[in-house]
């Protein structure tokens, strides 16, 4: 069943419940630990796996077509800004991968738009969005328009 939870590792913290986009990680009332209540609605998206502080969640490929004896493990490290994967094939082959997940410390590089100067009436009347035209080409160039690009909307020939 796509995700499953190791009994001895889970402490019932609920992080997986909080994050699962499919609402299928739930806490079992008897054991007070998490489990996947609806495996056929699991995308193997690994959101819960990445979020579990105990590394208690793992994935066993869909029974319809995935034989037993494999594993794909992940370690996502927000502080280092990396994600590490370890793939184990049924036949024992192993592959490891490491990628960056961000280039900036979390949350600091995004401005609060409530605090930037309010748009002028002219900006409001224009077709420009926040930070435009500067951010379109990162030079002084303006927005593309039908006029600037020598274009015209014409009714389709067959209509």
């Amino acid at each position: 069943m796509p995700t499953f939870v190791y009994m001895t590792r889970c402490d019932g913290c609920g992080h997986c419940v909080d994050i699962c986009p499919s609402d299928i990680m739930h806490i079992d009332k008897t054991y007070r630990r998490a489990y996947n209540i609806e495996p056929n609605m699991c995308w193997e998206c690994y959101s819960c796996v990445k979020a579990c502080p105990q590394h208690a969640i793992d994935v066993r490929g869909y029974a319809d077509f995935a034989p037993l004896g494999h594993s794909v493990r992940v370690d996502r490290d927000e502080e280092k800004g990396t994600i590490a994967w370890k793939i184990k094939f049924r036949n024992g082959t192993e592959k490891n991968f490491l990628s960056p997940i961000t280039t900036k410390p979390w949350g600091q590089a995004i401005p609060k738009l409530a605090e930037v100067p309010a748009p002028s009436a002219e900006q409001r009347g224009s077709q420009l969005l926040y930070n435009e035209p500067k951010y379109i080409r990162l030079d002084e160039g303006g927005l593309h328009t039908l006029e600037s690009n020598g274009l015209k909307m014409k009714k389709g020939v067959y209509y």
Partner: protein
Amino acid sequence: MAYKTIVEDSIDILVVGAGLGGTGAAWEARFWGQDKKIVIAEKANIDRSGAVAQGLYAINCYMGTRWGENNPEDHVRYARIDLMGLVREDLLFDMARHVDSTVHQFEEWGLPIMKNPETGRYLREGRWQIMIHGESYKPIVAEAAKKSADKVFNRICVTHLLMDESKENRVAGAVGFNVRTGDYHVFKSKAVICGAGGASNIFKPRSVGEGSGRTWYAPWSSASAYGLMIEAGAKMTQMENRIVLARFKDGYGPVGAYFLHLKTYTQNGMGEEYESKWFPDLQKMVGKEYLDPEVSHLTHRPIPTCLRNHALISEVNAGRGPIHMVTMQAFQDPHLEEVGWENFLGMTVGQAVLWAATDVDPKNENPELTTSEPYVMGSHATGSGAWCSGPEDVSPPEYFWGYNRMTTIEGLFGAGDAVGGTPHAFSSGSFTEGRLAAKAACKYIDDGKAEGIVVSDSQIGRRKKEIYKPLEHYKIYRNAIVAGDVNPHYINPKQGLDRLQKLMDEYCGGVTVSYMTNEKLLNIGLKKLRVMEEDLESLAAKDTHELLRAWELKHRHRAAECVTQHTLFRKETRWPGYYYRGDALKLDDKNWHVLTVSRRDPNTGEYTMEKAPCYHLVGDDE
């Protein structure tokens, strides 16, 4: 039921569904509406919700105007060729002229974008795609949205839009329930931006056991954008234009980077090239304007996605399957091998799980490809969604009614999959559309268009009763039987979904009938959908999780009905490889070079279908 009613009042902008479109809307709305009250209602957790929950390895829509790589009109031309001539060119041009500013912001926010070491430019996968390390794409854009919003309500399944009672056809907010607490949530708002995403699981998936979760589009893409808007009476367009994808078999791993960057290619079970063999016959079906392999070869004009599917489907039906992706050469290069694997780990981990389980190492073995079940969405190589106004400086009168990305319901805007006629927006374009909708929604409010909205307690009470009916129904009838799920008084959401998928598959051109349908079949399908609607009144949910599934099913059912109506209306085969009308197998430009537009009357449930003119702004050649 003892669920509380929680009212959030005096909202200016309500964002329903915070995926890529919704986060873009919430973020930008704060700039144009610095004192406005901006609220998000999201079914899951905004940090990992929507189609980008597990990340992406590419941004598929980036012009590169700063390096003179492409102009917006080039993108319009490309999307139009891919969609067999029919797109909203005004909306596409508008998205394309803004999308680069979105991507440049993403980079500034910390999204790792790969660079070409020789040129210093973003590393291109293909002409439109740039490669990223996008595992945290969704948390990053979520952070931006959270910085702008006054409040984010996670785990709210929005079930209905609220409508103004003082002015017809004007939106007034939305209602839903908290999937965890069960509480009833009422959001009274001047404007609503709908970003509730596209639809998986309307058609029967290829795997029907545990593996039915391994769909291409996320299993939680519940057609809610369509369900909500159709139900409220918004006009919809191109809903027949469902998409079928050629993907790695069972895992649905994406093929874009494989074709474009790794330069892998396909062959049939005999090891032969097969695609070109089908082109002469196909050209007779669609005409030389839409398929001209010689011109494509000389000018790099793309062969439309659906036509390439057609070749694959036909080859398999001719008994020469399976189709293989030839990876063994490319994967000998360790760098390309790494890209191949990371491509999955960044956006379709399930494909890596599958290859590990089946001992498929693409270095030693060419993996199988197949075509998927159909999906309904509006931001990939397909453009289903609401009929929306374009921007005033681009759109002709037929496409313009005051506010950019506003649907035909006043105050109701769309972004991403919710907007029709704008294929190839992808993640960056959807976010950009959200930004455009947000600016327009602020203007709508500032122009005084949302004054005097009235929502009566009776509307709020009526919806509440409707929402919890499946729980009530379960409580009343559960004890009529000893145990189990077979009950003469009700069906549960899973049983309902199975029924929907089976009938859509068999009557509306799903995978088990090789995507074939016709007028007779479609009419039977519509009849079955109508009967199913009666049974949906007898849906039972044993807890709030099942209540979520119940409302997802209702949204899927409504979208499916609209898809079937549109498929019936368009009497031609416009996109062979996506679906076929067996009774009209040819593309018919004389009668059908038009966009289809539907409206479901919220009072009677009747559909009205029209043809809308298709405007063009560029010629075919560059």
